[in-house]
């Protein structure tokens, strides 16, 4: 039991650490490619969609929009790797905290 508990705890910690890395990569990617329109740290978006309001349970919608573009937003699928887009989602879902 103890071993499983430790294993579970370890994997939870590793998972948490991995999630933190995602958010950090997401924050960096966001700052480079998204902040100009969606606002620094998602505050004060200049007429672009307010990402702080993006539903936290619609990852697929987010990934599609970033990859393919939507309305005035150009497609980023040709520029960003899937891991970077996933990291962006981690950052947005975390509400801009990192």
């Amino acid at each position, binding site marked *: 039991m103890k071993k499983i508990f430790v294993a579970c705890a370890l994997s939870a910690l590793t998972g948490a650490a991995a999630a933190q890395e995602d958010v950090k990569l997401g924050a960096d990617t966001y700052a480079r490619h998204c902040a*100009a329109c969606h606002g620094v740290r998602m505050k004060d978006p200049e007429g672009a969609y307010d990402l702080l309001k993006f539903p936290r349970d619609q990852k697929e919608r987010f990934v599609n929009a970033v990859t393919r573009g939507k309305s005035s937003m150009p497609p980023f699928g040709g520029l960003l790797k899937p891991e970077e887009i996933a990291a962006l989602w981690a950052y947005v879902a975390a509400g801009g905290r990192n």
Partner: protein
Amino acid sequence: MKSFATALALCVGCCSLAQAQTQQELLADSNGGTTDNVLTYGMGYKQQRYSPLKQINKSTVKRLVPVWAMSLNNDVGEQGQPLVYNGVMYTGNVKQTVAIDVVTGRQIWATPIDWDPAAARIVCCGLSQRGVALYNGKVFVASLDAYLKALDAKTGKEIWRTKVADWKEGISITSAPTVANGVLMTGMTGGEYGVRGFVAGYDPETGKELWRRFMTPDPGEKGSETWPKDDTYKRGGGAPWITGSYDSELDLIYWGTSNGGPWAAKWRPGDNLWVASVVALRPRTGEIVWHFQWTPAETYDFDGTNENLLGDITVGGVKRKALMHADRNGFLYVLDRTNGKLIAGNAYVKVNWAQPHIDPAVGRVEETDVAKRLRAGEKVEVQPRWTGGKNWFPMAFNPKTQKLYFPMTEEASIYQLNTDMPAYKPGERYMGVENTSAPRDKTAPWGYYAALDPLTAKPAWKIPQPEFPMWSGSLVTAGGLVFSGRLTGEFMALDEATGKVLWQFQTSSGVTSQPITFTHKGRQYITVLSGLGGGTSARRETQGKVQVGGSVWTFALMPK
């Protein structure tokens, strides 16, 4: 003399073509030519946007009604100025160019501009397209992904296309091209992406590039002493993204240049010619004949790209060939357009980064303590905001009243240079600052629409705009009317003498474009594009309050 002879030579070759539109006609546009045509960006090479037409005037404007409207199938904004030649209107947006019958409003042809959708990544401020050029039976248009294209004016079919630049380097084109002295010219944009600004000249018949004049000097070139001695100049900005005005007697075309790259000037010590400047070029060679720098060592995102309106004004009893320019930086300048000397420079909105009056003997702004603290890395409140006292939308000038008509914004920013140098990566923002809007006193007007004396920047009248700033071009007519539009969609005719709204029509979306007026079979028409977008600021204010959707609106007097 030289340009006249050249014009004659060209005219002999092409006057015979029915659909042709000649150098002579271009020179005569708003300069003695027929009011049936609008052949140039700015309604005349001088870009005064003044019409001698009087059919629509202060008494008759109450009968002004829409006579047709046409959808432009676009929700990212309309900024264009239509052109008219022989009863056909040429206009469009970032997505397409269209030819329209001016009487019926029926489409004659439509040609998609067809650009790489990924290029929108390197456009800072909206998917804008400000117009086309006409010459010798061709319509010239630039694409967002930095191509220049020639279409057959009769059919809209593409005749040639030429690559101006690689958009992946952060370069795009949002301005109307222009043809002057037989040369087709375009500027470009990308000041936020560490580009090296340039104007390029092409053969209108073939699209072959004739010259490219960079807006930062080569090492060793005169002006390079205002840059560090490394390759900083290659990412220095100075992108000219508004169509140049032209004086055909002097044979000089005047282009304004954008902010510096990166935004934070501390990484490029020096005045940085010819960033945030006006340059006077020869159309045939691109040679810089003179320059004037609006904002030396520019670090505020005060693009110097606003239009350079040419007019003759009386200064101390003497008629002077003037160039008038309302800069982003909050100053209204009057230069001698023969040599670039400063005649007058005064703030037209609240400024706190420089003293509000420029001494013509000094010829240069005097920065304040606010500017010093900003350059030293402190977080400061700057007036005007980086989007400027006035942005790209062009002003109008009445040569009879010698007044300028345009909307201005009163706004401040919170601005700070970052401590670290930004990393340059092609196609990515190259800034080095943090900038946000300062909280605004919502009881104060956000801006004004005013009639200004160019020499003093003092208003003859000033109408507060409480709800939103205005973001529209202007037109002034001999009928005593000034036309402009609001972000909330009203297209208005103001009494030129008082600013009172004498007429307005609620168009389908916000007005951020450039109205024109012309005649056809003796009837005067006014046309404006309606369609919110084209600028992040214009969208910011009206988000959720005004619908998007572009269309052309044409008005004329209802018969009695």
